């Protein structure tokens, strides 16, 4: 049944032959109108995804667009509130992961799924995976000498991910779902994985491929479905230059808003910068996550960090906060090199860390006052009697500064999320930290509180303090930052002054694409370049 044919939807380099039957037949998997609510929040409103036999299909969307919710629904991990899922033309409600598996749909998630305390063989038995095909796939994927009696715990992460993939391939699924498959892999293994995925498509099976790397997507995928705010906004064929269009689709109508914000923010509270950098980071390295990060943070500056999830920003902040020790590179504070072995070292150097997850930073059963004053008693020489009057003064001035609603006296856990987040910041205002590392401080809090936090960060900069601000919401960059550092794959790939940091530019950079020609046009360039990836940066 092999016959050469050219179809409109897959003119691609790299693909030579494919099953023609596949491309003319009905979709293997067809989901339409899928919706899912978590309480009042709609994670998915109207998502659809149609995968043809024999295609490698990319699923794309910015952070929070609903990719992972859709994946969980397709693989039976959670159930949709509405929508129809057809597998091979038949209505199917993938009720559980096992049901999805029986229907021929198999996911490989980012987190390794082998049970750590069992050896590889026992793990295979657990899922009823045939051993010989598994071994063949493992060899195929570039690991020639795997001992299947080795305990999973002792196997390095990269290899575990490959084993997960081999385990999925061994049961010959019709639809293989790969979530950021190449993320933790070294280049040689990633190469092999991509090769196998491509062959999978050529042999008539389908792959749903989730990745932040455009390079891989354009080399591998036939089509892409783009999600935005819980709905499918388009399905495109992958062809040269399509990246621009995809970025545009992921951003949608938000492009217009930002230029206005930029014009407004630029005039507010100009930063009191001076020439000596407060913090300078050079060639920072850490395991597989940070490869080479260098930047300066000036006094009186708010520097934004923009990155897709898992590009090394967590590790960067942890290293600067003294939580983990970097493997290489230097950090200098006010020009003097420092080595942090504990957060208290960083705090002594005036660097405070506000984690994205409030529950990480707060003693929930203690009072607002105790939480704010916690750093005061950290050092053993401060273990003595508390100077109550002074403490009350400092704390209440910080509470006033952030307008924390303390009507719910007593435990912090009785406060609203926004007020809790304010407490985590107020702690360092009270402690008068000179540099604050804010990791996505506005995640999951109300709009009003967000505005207050933006204002506060600008005020801090106005007082000569410096702020490093990671955000997963690109529009915040224009509101808060003076400068933006973009990290991709553990490296700083670009740095923008805020005037040039509109959302499309940031999104492109965050996906590792080179800067387009539009920067020449200036900040209000609202032109939509058709395809300018080839333009020189």
């Amino acid at each position, binding site marked *: 049944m092999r016959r050469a044919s050219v179809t409109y939807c897959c003119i691609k380099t790299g693909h030579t032959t494919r099953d023609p039957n596949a491309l003319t037949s009905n979709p293997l998997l067809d989901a339409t109108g899928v919706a899912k609510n978590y309480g009042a929040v709609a994670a998915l409103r109207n998502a659809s995804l149609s995968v043809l036999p024999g295609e490698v299909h990319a699923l794309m969307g910015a952070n929070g667009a609903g990719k992972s919710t859709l994946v969980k629904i397709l693989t039976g991990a959670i159930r949709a509130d509405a929508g129809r899922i057809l597998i091979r033309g038949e209505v199917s409600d993938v009720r559980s992961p096992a049901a999805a598996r029986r229907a021929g749909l198999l996911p490989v998630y980012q987190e390794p799924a082998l049970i750590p305390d069992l050896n590889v063989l026992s793990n295979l038995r657990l899922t009823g995976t045939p051993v010989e095909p598994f071994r063949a796939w493992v060899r195929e994927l570039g690991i020639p000498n795997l001992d299947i009696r080795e305990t999973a715990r002792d196997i390095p992460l990269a290899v575990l991910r490959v084993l997960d993939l081999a385990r999925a391939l061994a049961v010959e699924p019709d639809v293989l779902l790969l979530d950021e498959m190449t993320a933790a892999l070294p280049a040689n293994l990633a190469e092999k994985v991509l090769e196998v995925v491509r062959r999978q498509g050529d042999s008539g099976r389908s792959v749903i491929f989730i990745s932040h790397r455009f390079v891989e997507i354009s080399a591998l995928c036939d089509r892409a479905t783009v999600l935005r705010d819980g709905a499918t906004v388009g399905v495109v064929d992958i062809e040269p230059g399509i990246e621009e269009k995809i970025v545009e689709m992921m951003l949608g109508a938000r492009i217009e808003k930002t230029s206005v914000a930029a014009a407004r923010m630029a005039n507010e509270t100009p930063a009191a910068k001076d020439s000596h950098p407060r913090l300078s980071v050079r060639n920072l390295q850490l395991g597989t996550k940070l490869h080479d990060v260098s930047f300066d943070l000036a006094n009186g500056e708010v520097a934004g960090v923009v990155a897709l999830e898992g590009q090394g920003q967590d590790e960067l902040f942890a290293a600067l906060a003294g939580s983990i020790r970097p493997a290489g590179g230097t950090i200098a504070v006010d020009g003097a090199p420092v080595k942090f072995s504990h957060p*208290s070292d960083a*705090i002594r150097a005036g660097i405070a860390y506000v984690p994205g997850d409030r529950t990480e*930073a707060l*003693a929930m059963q*203690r009072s607002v006052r105790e939480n704010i004053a916690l750093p005061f008693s950290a050092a053993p020489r401060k273990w003595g009697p508390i100077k109550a009057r002074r403490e009350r003064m400092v704390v209440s001035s910080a509470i006033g500064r952030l307008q924390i609603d303390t009507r719910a006296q007593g435990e912090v856990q009785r406060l609203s999320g926004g007020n809790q987040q304010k407490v985590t910041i107020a702690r360092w205002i009270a402690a008068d930290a000179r540099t604050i590392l804010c990791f996505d401080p506005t995640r999951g809090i109300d709009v009003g509180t967000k505005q207050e936090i933006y204002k506060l960060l600008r005020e801090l900069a106005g007082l000569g303090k410096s702020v490093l601000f990671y955000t997963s919401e690109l529009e915040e960059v224009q509101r808060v930052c003076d400068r933006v550092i973009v990290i991709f794959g553990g490296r700083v790939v670009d740095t923008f002054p805020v005037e040039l940091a509109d959302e499309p530019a940031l999104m492109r950079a965050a996906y590792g694409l080179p800067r387009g020609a539009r920067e020449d046009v200036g900040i209000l360039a609202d032109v939509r370049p058709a395809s300018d990836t080839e333009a020189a940066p």
Partner: protein
Amino acid sequence: MTNSATLPQPAPFGRRLKRFMADRPIIPLIILLVILVMILQILRPGIVNERWIANTAKFAIPLAILAGCQTMTMLTGGIDLSVGTVATMSAFIMATQIVNQDPAVACVLAMLPALLIGLVNGIGVGVFRVHPLIMTLGTSLIGTGFLQVYQRTVIASGARIPDFLNWLGTGLTYGFPNALFLFVPVAVLIVFTLNRTGFGRLLYAVGDNEHAARLSGVRYWQVVTALYVISSLLAGITGLLYIGLIKAPSLSLAEPLVLPSVAAAVIGGTSIFGGRGGYMGTIIGALILTVLTTLLTILHMPEGGRRILFGFIVLFVTAAYLRIIEDR
């Protein structure tokens, strides 16, 4: 002791009462204590008199101090099972060394193992991250072993209880037990430390959210090492007091107090998971356990039945109490 008079009276009485008790968790404990004393008085009219109160206090005090060790360690999510061994060691060493040594020297020698065990506990838990239950159980066994070896070396010299410990353990001043001269300052110090010092605050913070404490610059090992040393020293002092009360040094002198000291802290409202509790509740908890013991003793039950009943009552009281104070 008419505490019921302070309760609010208005219409939605049940809920108001519950809210009131949730905000002042010590009130239901005191009520329970009063009820137990009343039951005792009904079962054996006339038993509750000045002498009985002094006697109860004398036996409750060592338990309350050891329960203070548990309270502080439990606030950080830990526990100190070595307090029994430490108290026994200090008591036994004191009783045997006083024979040939100056009292001051004997005191120092008696407190030495306490310091050492506390240090080892603290370093084990704080630096090597051994679970406190295992760590303190281990040092407790090791301490007992050393004590047995030590006993052989002093078997000839005999033992005696120094006068000042006799005075402290069993003496009365104007009807008040002298042990109060030790206990009141210790209790005030513990309460003050927990509520008004940086160290006390760190105990709560570490037990509530260790990660948050770390991000605030708190070094866990420092807090924990200091904590277990303090706990052990308190246990050592308790041993000295206890030998003055019991007057018969043995190798398992204070061992029977260990689990009741945990129970007293739990009954007193300190969470075994850390971050919640206080010493005032613990003191009442220790009193409740002591009165309960008396109550069961006068029931003329066989020892086995008494223990079964004791266990059931402790379980019931703890469950009921947690339900009262945690329903918010």
